[in-house]
């Protein structure tokens, strides 16, 4: 499977602000998944967007996918201190099974 590249590497915002992070990948995908990792809850799946979808929402999360640009973005609205974590994207190619290949992630710090 291919690795996603998250950007920026680090992001620092105040509570209540929105946070946007981006992911780029290289080859065609079946779907793209976003994960969050913090010390409290470990690595947790956030959202999966399929290659035929352009936008998906889950609570305060909004994910977009542009397959022509091979990129995805994750928007967190009205951020909270509890959103402080590292965020990873994992592009999944067409295959019989899917291992996740993570980049270094975006480290988000939300200050009260």
């Amino acid at each position, binding site marked *: 499977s291919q690795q996603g590249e998250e950007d920026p590497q680090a992001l620092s915002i105040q509570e209540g602000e929105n946070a946007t992070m981006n992911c780029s990948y290289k080859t065609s995908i079946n779907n793209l998944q976003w994960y969050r990792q913090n010390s409290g809850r470990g690595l947790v799946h956030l959202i999966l967007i399929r290659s035929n979808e352009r936008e998906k929402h889950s609570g305060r999360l909004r994910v977009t996918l542009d397959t022509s640009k091979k990129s995805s973005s994750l928007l967190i609205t009205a951020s909270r201190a509890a959103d402080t974590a590292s965020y990873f994207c994992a592009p999944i190619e067409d295959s019989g*099974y899917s291992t996740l290949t993570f980049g270094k992630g975006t480290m988000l710090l939300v200050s009260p």
Partner: protein
Amino acid sequence: GAGVSQSPRYKVAKRGQDVALRCDPISGHVSLFWYQQALGQGPEFLTYFQNEAQLDKSGLPSDRFFAERPEGSVSTLKIQRTQQEDSAVYLCASSLDGRASEQFFGPGTRLTVL
């Protein structure tokens, strides 16, 4: 509801010792994955099981690493003759069928080799 569990949560080993890390996946999940995460990096794939069959071990860094899942449920990752560079967090994940679906991760085992 029970998620993926791993034990031990922390392990300190002297260089040269053998260690065994255990993973209990979510009941009924066909696929099981092991990942290694070094400090400041994203997790890196080690190996994949579909039921009891190890279908991909391309990520195992050396022949000192061995994984098994004999009954298609619990899995053990064994590291022989541990080295300092083996120090990392070892994550286990399971998924319902492994076919491009989401993975559920355990809390990890933090291994420190002295």
